[in-house]
């Protein structure tokens, strides 16, 4: 184990950053072999700088990543997800702990698909003890997912439904009340194409001849959104 591991906390709430620090310090207190150098970034701009302009040859070892962040000023980094991709690109060895208040399946799944983080914490499930445990576990090369996330993963493993990203996006957009006429601006498909996918989705979820609401409820029940 190296003497010093570099940790980056990315969260727009200073209080949360402090909480993470406290947790890390407690880890250091309890495990004398772990030595950490902690830095934090409170917005996308500073986070990107810290990720891309590393002054040492070694990169970040552990990153706490909040998903909902104020976008960068140049609008190129819009969320923690984009930062996560940057981290994966620049610091392949870094371990990522996603900590978010999101608990909807769609977002969680999307994050899994794009970042495949070592830790996935749902802030509201979290308490100090779990946080400390999660850090230790991940530092030692394991993974840790919050209860909500684990449940979702299990549910997904259980059912045989297989839909692609666009399908999920459509379902998600419908669930948040996006209008059909606006969908083509979000999903790279025509109205007819979307309509067709929706019909297939209804078949898959066994809600034929019912409204969108039925489809969404079913999809949510099955953990797709």
């Amino acid at each position, binding site marked *: 184990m190296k003497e010093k591991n570099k940790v980056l906390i990315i969260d727009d*709430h200073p*209080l*949360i950053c*402090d*909480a*993470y620090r*406290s*947790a890390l*310090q*407690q880890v250091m207190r309890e495990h004398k072999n772990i030595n950490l150098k902690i830095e934090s970034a409170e917005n996308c701009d500073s986070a990107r700088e810290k990720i891309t302009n590393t002054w040492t040859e070694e990169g970040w070892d552990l990153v706490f990543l909040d998903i*909902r962040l104020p976008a960068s000023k140049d609008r190129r980094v819009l969320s923690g997800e984009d930062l996560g991709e940057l981290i994966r690109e620049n610091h392949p060895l870094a371990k990522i702990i996603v900590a978010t*208040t999101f*608990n*909807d399946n769609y977002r969680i799944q999307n994050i899994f698909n794009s970042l495949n983080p070592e830790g996935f914490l749902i*802030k*509201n499930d*979290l*308490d*100090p*003890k779990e*946080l400390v445990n999660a850090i230790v576990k991940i530092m030692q090369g394991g993974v840790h997912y919050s209860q909500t996330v684990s449940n979702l993963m299990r549910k997904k493993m259980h059912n045989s439904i297989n839909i692609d990203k666009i399908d999920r996006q459509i379902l998600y957009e419908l*669930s*948040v*009340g996006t*209008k*059909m*006429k606006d969908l083509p601006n979000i999903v790279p498909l025509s*109205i007819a194409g979307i309509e067709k996918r929706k019909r297939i989705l209804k078949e898959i979820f066994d809600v034929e*001849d*019912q*409204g*969108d*609401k*039925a489809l*969404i409820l079913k999809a949510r029940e099955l953990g797709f959104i």
Partner: protein
Amino acid sequence: MVLRDFYRCYFPFAILICLNLSCNQVDNSDYIIPCIECSKIETVLDEFKLNHLTKSQKLDLLNEAYELSTQLKVDSLKSLYIFKISNKMLKLKEYSSFRDLSEEYLLLAEELNDTMRIADYYWNMGLYYSKIEVSDSAFYSFKKASQNFSNVGHKYYEAKMDYNMAFILRRSKNYIESEAYAFNSISKLNSQENKVLLYRDYNHLGLLYYDMKQYDYSINYHQKALNIVSVLPKGNIYLERSLNNLSLIYQKQEKYDLAIETLNEALENSSLREKHSNLYAKLIDNKAFCMFLNEEDDNLLQRFNEALAIRQNLENEAGIVISHSHLAQYFLKKKDSMKALAYAKSAYEISSRLGMNRDILESLELLSKTDPSHATGYMNQYTVLNDSLIQQERKIREKFTRIQFETENYMAANENLKKKNIWISLTSGLALFSLSLFFFLYRQRSKNKTLLLEQQQHGFNEEIYDLMLKKQNRTEEGRIQERVRISHELHDGILARLFSVRIGLGFLNVLDSNKEKEQYDSFMKELQLVEKEIRTLSHDLKNDDLSSKKDFTILLSELLEEQSRLGGFRFQLKQDQSIAWNRVDEMIKINLYRMVQEAICNIIKYAKADEVKVSLTRENDFFELRIVDDGVGFDTNKKNNGIGLKNMASRANSIAAKIQIKSQVNNGTIITVSIPTKTLYHEGKK
């Protein structure tokens, strides 16, 4: 000379017949005797018919009847009796009394405004004038009578008047016009009517053509007259008269044998001698004259004398003139100039006394032959008389022409009036028509205006609906936005801060005692629960968005709720969740909404329903809107089903939907609107 015969023979005859008819006509109205005076008059008049009375006695009776009739109060009755009495006066040749009575009769008739009676008056006046041989006045009177009969449309009497006028005209030597009137008279008769008049017309024409020396025509018409003699009333002497007339033509054509034969045929009637001795005398006289002309001397003198004797016996002076004239010719031939002169003189004297001009001329001619010594004097007298006669005739003819012209003017004026009337009625009809047309157009226009206004109102209604929808959408959008905002606020702000506070607290480790630690942990758990609740709340706020997609159905249910309260009925709104209303074109939704509104309106107005079911369903390829009520229903076969249903139909048509209205009286109404799903969504694409 022969001409003279006809006048004498026919003129009184014609008058008698006409007079009879004239009386008959009035008698028809004399159905009951309605009062004591009337019955008294009737008895007086009955008494008058007795033959043995002398003329003065008869006159007394008539005066008595007149006295009685003046007491009558009913004008129509009074006029009837006055007419009867005046007729009898005419028969008695009491002309002044007749005229007075006739004038009175005319006044009454005019008072009663009875055209028939006025016509009767003129008829009688015509007879009177022809009796006293005032031809122009007679003609005028007959013409007037004819006009009046024509006014009341009495063809038969018109024909009679025509005959009378023809008769008068012939007497005045107006042959051409006389011919025209005779033909007029015939043309006005129809086959069913009394043939006597037709016989008379034929006979008249026969005589007329004789006068005009067209003997073949004359024979032809006499034959025609003879042909219908068989259907004429029996006991008359039509046949014998016609035969006599015919014989005169043969005599003129110098077919004496034929003439004699014809006369013999007439003489076969053995009753002639007693009943119609006048005609009998004429026949034998004519026969003798024919034989004389044929130079057959078979008791000629005896025959002439027999005729003369009968005539003298009858005091038939005109007949005596003829007999004397014949005898004069006979004796002239026999060279017995003394006797010839005596007869010729006698003929001249009698004819002069009677004013029979033609006979005077003939006797003058005879005298000049029988008395050669005074021949020049007679011839001079002859020429003077002849000239004056011709002049007189011409004057009379001119008078006739004037009367004719005047009456024709009158007719023309009448015609003009008629034309005017036609024009007036035509123009007034036209005016009425155009007025009604105008009225109709006006109504149509106002109707159109109402329709236009209605249409405009519909347009406004649609706009209102559109605005309602938009407003609904806006508020919904605002609501959603607000919810999303709150949800985000809760989620990103409050929740994050709560979390950070909780975690931060967790790392403080300020507490030592176990008890306090436990308490601390439970607070932390509580805090975590609060976070969870907030998160759920935030989610729920967002997820409620789904309900906002049912804007159309919300409007519908709002409508139904409101109307059901108004109309006091229960309602059910069923809808298929699978219909994506946000994809359906607003126009379709507007029209569907309007149709529901219209139907509900009808239900409230007419149906008196307790329950209304509205359903929006999708089955296979069709979308269906169904409105069912349990009200009184109506007869769908009735043509005029009101503007509401028509509107619904036109709305359905405008969105390519099919509408079906099923209803039975007292059995509710079912309205079904179906649209292919494709149309429903394709419209949405536009």
